[in-house]
């Protein structure tokens, strides 16, 4: 086992004192048990170690000690993007699901609000490369959750290359005899992502980049833009301002620069170069260089749009204050003809699109936060030719070949119904 990279943690319930309960992990890749420093768990700890499981101590205050040394769970909004050990333990993450009362089945256009950690995992992996990202979140209290909800929780981390430190709901903690279906769903999802772990190393395929230092008072704004671009099914790449000089911008169509401070001159010139070559830069009124001819007005009049070279510079007339509007305006300014993918009946879904470095294979992850098949089947549209498409689910041993239908803007792939998660593997 490689240090750090293959730890798969589960928070062992304090009330599970019977070593026989370890049988629930028999087919699971879980290999780390985070256990409270409780003497009454001594037998479980001993049995677990005999089974090859690593037992780490986790205090109620969020201190974890294990072979990697000690580390602390830090609220994700307070996480320092510099320094730290091999494991980044982010607390205060959300239980990934369609938010209660968000009108998932509302009228002709209702799209539900979704709670997800995916944007955070993608951000943390970019800003803290080479480190393992563990997400800490608990099932909602006083709620009976279906096994599929746990599969969503696994997928919402694994798809983005992070790990969920598994935690069970109160009901299962007090009635472990009912935990079988949930543990099987968790294991199936984890095993699936273990089998396809190469996917998490594939570069994100995106038309939009979000460039920021993701710190200070504007941190929330920059982070929420990521979250809300996800809800528009607009794949994005996180661009670390500190490493911007080395970042490849060539495959992007648009860059959002939301930081209130003007970029340093070198970065400013780099971004202007991106625009001159045909890109779109969406930024705030702090932007200094305004040489260019008037461009097409934006729909809402919130931007001064300038043509610069082959591209456009969209400068907000007022400082960014609403990340929803920034995500919306970015999409409108860019135009849907640049959508890399599109979903129908996918209101409860988020997507993550990654492509093998040689450009021959890609995967579109589909996380269904409703955790049950949609009322109408989902169709995936891709804006590029696809030679072969396979549909994979954690519970299915074999993939299913998908029908590829020509469409005005690429191809459409009608998908079978699925619950928590599915992946569409593409040969392109």
């Amino acid at each position, binding site marked *: 086992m490689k240090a750090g990279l293959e730890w798969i943690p589960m928070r062992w319930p304090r009330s599970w004192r019977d070593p026989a309960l370890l049988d629930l992990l028999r087919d699971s890749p879980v290999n780390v048990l985070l256990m409270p420093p409780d003497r009454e768990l001594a037998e479980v700890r001993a049995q677990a170690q005999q089974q090859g499981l690593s037992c780490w101590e986790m205090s109620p205050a969020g201190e974890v000690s294990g072979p990697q040394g000690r580390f602390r769970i830090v609220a994700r909004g307070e996480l320092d993007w510099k320094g730290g050990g091999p494991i980044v333990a982010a607390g205060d993450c959300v239980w990934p699901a369609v938010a209660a009362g968000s009108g998932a089945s509302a009228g002709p*256009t209702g799209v539900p609000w979704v709670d997800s950690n995916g944007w955070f995992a993608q951000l943390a992996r970019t800003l803290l490369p080479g480190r393992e990202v563990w997400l800490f979140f608990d099932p909602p209290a006083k709620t009976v959750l279906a096994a599929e909800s746990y599969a969503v929780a696994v997928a919402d981390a694994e798809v983005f290359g992070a790990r969920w430190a598994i935690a069970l709901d109160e009901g299962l903690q007090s009635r472990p005899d009912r935990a079988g279906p949930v543990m099987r769903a968790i294991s199936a999802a984890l095993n699936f992502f273990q089998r396809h772990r190469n996917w998490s190393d594939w570069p994100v395929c995106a038309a939009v980049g979000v460039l920021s230092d993701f710190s200070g008072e504007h941190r929330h704004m920059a982070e929420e833009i990521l979250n809300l671009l996800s809800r528009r099914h607009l794949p994005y790449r996180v661009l670390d301002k500190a490493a911007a000089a080395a970042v490849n911008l060539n495959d992007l169509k648009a860059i959002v620069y939301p930081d209130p401070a003007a970029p340093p001159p070198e970065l400013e010139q780099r971004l202007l170069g991106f625009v001159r070559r045909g890109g779109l830069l969406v930024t705030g009124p702090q932007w200094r260089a305004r040489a260019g001819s008037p461009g097409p007005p934006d*729909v809402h009049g919130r931007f001064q749009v300038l043509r610069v070279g082959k591209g456009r510079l969209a400068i907000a007339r007022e400082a960014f204050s609403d990340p929803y509007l920034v995500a919306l305006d970015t999409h409108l300014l860019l135009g*849907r003809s640049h959508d890399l993918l599109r979903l*129908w009946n996918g209101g409860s879904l988020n997507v993550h699109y990654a492509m093998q470095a040689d450009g021959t294979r890609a995967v579109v992850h589909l996380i269904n936060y409703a955790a049950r098949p949609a009322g*109408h089947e989902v169709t995936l*549209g891709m804006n590029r030719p696809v030679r072969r498409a396979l549909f994979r689910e954690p519970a299915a041993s074999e993939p299913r070949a998908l029908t590829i239908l020509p469409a005005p803007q690429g191809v459409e792939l*009608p998908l079978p119904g699925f619950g928590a998660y599915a992946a569409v593997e593409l040969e392109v």
Partner: protein
Amino acid sequence: MSMEFTRREVLGVMTGAGKFMGQPPAPAAPVSVVRCRSYGAELRPAMERLFDQLGGLSRLVKGKVVAIKLNLTGSPSYRLGHRPLGMAQWVHQDVVGVFVALLGRAGAKRIRLLESPWSTAEPLEEYMLAANWDPRALATAAPEVEFENTNYLGRRKAYVRFPVPKGGLIYPAYDLSPAYRDCDVFVSLAKLKEHATAGVTLSMKNCFGITPCTIYGDGAPEDEPGQFPRGGRTMLHTGYRQPPRACPQELDPRSPREGGYRVPRVVADLVAARPIDLAIIDGIESMAGGEGPWVRQTRPISPGLLIAGLNPVCTDAVATALMGFDPMAERGTAPFERCDNTMRLGEGLGIGTCNLARIEVRGASLEEAVCRFRA
């Protein structure tokens, strides 16, 4: 269940009553029906035949500005199963494309594609792209094709007030985009569907969507029209609030606050205020049970029909009959179980008759072309 008509409406609707009241009967006009099984190669000749049976397009559109209200209801992200939107709740892109091409050939000076897509100010082309349409194909199907989102003012300066002749049923007038005034020929290009609130949605109900959400949307301001659309048109459905004070207010705020009463009347008002010169209904592929996938227990249906006419009430009456319903049916009878009959209201306003005995059907007969939406 009795219909909830006002005295004036009842008097107007009563067949023959106009003679005794000194009013002429509502006009009748022929309706063209063509069978067409697919949106493939047979579509263009079928549409040519559809209009030829009405005397041809040239006499109607040559040298004219033609505005076409499309039926692009709901979000483009919704589908009935895997069916593209044009195979279910939207008019099909190829019907639009062929129609635009035929208009161009017939000498139309300018062609404007109009719709007020729900709660958005985005360009209509973008809205179409989201449905996987190709707006470029439409833009190049004829010279001088334009797209306009009429859900807000856009680059236009002010809304235009359209008074309802005879005073109106719900509102005395409606404030609409100038795009609905600045045309010589107004076309409603609709889909053959049932509707959860209005029973059927055809060429008349399609005009519900000419109302801008900056005025009739849930997020419209209290005093003046909003700058951008916010929310749906619940105001028109339930009357829970009034439009901005600068716009025409309801005639009777004590009238029933339910969609089955209000929506048919608002539609009849709108069609009276902004007359439809040409009504076209795409019934080649559609859906039964409701107007969109968000309605429970909807299903695909393949009527294989194209319907057109110069009078929207007559056209909708024939279309309703082709769906297997009685276009004269009263409230409580299918498909108007929970609503009033928009066509009868339109007849009451003198727009046209829904009495099939007075309507000449050209092309396929009702008997041979009927496709029962409720088996």
